[in-house]
């Protein structure tokens, strides 16, 4: 089977700045660019390689700070890898930070349009689906109200509804599979299963083993060393839990 996505030797590091980092152009110009340079770097992970196949749900498990969100952001093209590369065949849709992708001053309908167009739908398709998306999120009556008047639950449901109505080839979900009440969750799972039937691959990141065990076909364990294990969920989760009990939680140290 041809993979939808190939992640090859991926590595990402972040800059850490000294507290005295100038935040203004004037200070930067006066102090020279040197002081504006990062004090050091730390690698979130290195040498991560795997493939994603159509119709599967791949779970990403790891502790807080293991780089799950970073990995998803790299896949979405929001961040740039410092080593390795990602090969992508298809349209990607991402639920990375619910509510963050909405514009508070625009109405629900306008936000649906923006997100839909950004996710590769044509104007006509978006217009046709706006009501459907509103109904799915349970906010039909509020579609023409500005998003700043929405509750956080409404925002999360709207973001979710848009993402799963844009026919993505790959859907990235960060920790947030379970927004809304159980009825909304049920609808989301059903819709995601239907998408997977059509060949959509889903990447689900979570630090809760149960979430991965219940939903995923394969699991991937990510930590500071990189990719620790990849395979059937029960095996990976068992290894993860055995190790997690032993290891004290450490913050990433600076790179010399």
């Amino acid at each position, binding site marked *: 089977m041809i993979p939808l996505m190939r992640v090859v030797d991926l590595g990402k590091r972040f800059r850490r700045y000294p507290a005295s980092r100038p935040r*203004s*152009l004037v200070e930067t110009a006066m102090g020279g660019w040197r002081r504006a340079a990062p004090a050091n770097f730390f690698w979130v992970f290195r040498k991560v390689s795997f493939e994603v196949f159509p119709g599967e749900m791949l779970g990403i498990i790891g502790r807080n700070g293991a780089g799950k969100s970073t990995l998803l952001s790299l896949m979405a*093209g*929001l961040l*740039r890898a410092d080593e390795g590369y990602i*090969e*992508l065949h298809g349209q*990607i849709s991402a639920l990375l930070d619910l509510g963050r992708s909405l514009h508070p001053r625009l109405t629900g309908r306008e936000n649906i349009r923006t997100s839909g*167009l950004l996710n590769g739908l044509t*104007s006509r398709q978006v217009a046709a689906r706006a009501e459907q998306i509103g109904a799915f999120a349970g906010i039909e009556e509020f579609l023409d109200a500005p998003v700043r008047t929405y509750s956080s639950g409404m925002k999360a449901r709207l973001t979710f509804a848009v993402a799963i109505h844009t026919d993505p080839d790959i859907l990235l979900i960060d920790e947030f599979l379970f927004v809304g009440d159980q009825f909304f969750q049920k609808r989301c799972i059903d819709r995601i299963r239907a998408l997977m039937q059509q060949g959509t691959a889903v990447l689900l990141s979570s630090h809760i083993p149960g979430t991965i065990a219940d939903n995923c076909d394969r699991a991937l364990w990510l930590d500071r060393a990189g990719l620790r294990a990849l395979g059937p969920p029960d095996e990976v989760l068992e290894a993860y839990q055995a190790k997690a009990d032993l290891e004290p939680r450490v913050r990433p140290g600076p790179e010399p």
Partner: protein
Amino acid sequence: MVHERVMASPSPAAKGTARQAWRLAHETSFSWKSVRYVRDLFVHLVSLELRLLHKRSRLGVAWTLANPIVQLVVFTSILGRVLTVDVPYYPLFLCCGLLCWNAFSESLTMAAGSIANAPNVLYQPGFRPIMMPLVVVTIGLIHFVLSLSILAVLLAYYRVPPGWPVIALPLLLGIQSLLTLALALPLAALTVSFDDAKHLLSVALRFLFFLTPIVYATDTFPRTLHLFYAANPLTHLVRAYRAIFIDGRWPDWLALSGVAAGSLIALLVGYRFFESRRFRFIEDVE
């Protein structure tokens, strides 16, 4: 220190693969579908921004005309009557300069906040942030074209008939947009990371306003000053608008091609700068 420098920029090889990877992921090869996608998105974003700017009222667009009208009245009464600037058709002269200047400064001011004020689109996979400065420069151009109606009314009032050179207007608009965009891209990128870029811009614009022959003419100035004014691309643009609208003659093509060429080079540099910083936007935006 040296070690840190080396760490600061990844080796050329590593940089190459990372950039290549992103291209593979998000810049799919040219197709009519992608053209339509970009066009749909662009039109949508422009109309959204216009709606937000004008608070969703149809009268809102009329407010964009208020500012230049007030400026016209003030400068005409002070400079035209009290200080008596010796320029024929001074209101027309002033109008050309002010409208051109307003479009330029308004676009740059909006562009400076275009990324910093729209972090929501940064969180959409596959979005090219460069679209935001493009959108606001387009809006500046739309406002400019609308505000030209003030000039049209004044031209009719002073019974200045339009001549053939007026057809050069789209070309002038094109060159001005090129210049504006060339400055808008680095500005948009810098404002994300630096708090004071906006203030610096407004100070710089205030200076530039008086360093450009907008409210005065340079005809009687000494020769040495002419060189100084020639270095300012806006001088040539303002003069070109005056030439085609008021004098009914063709603009100074040599100077204009200089402005166009300079803007193109600046645009290339600005584009590269913008693209080199755009992956920091998510980390730096607040």
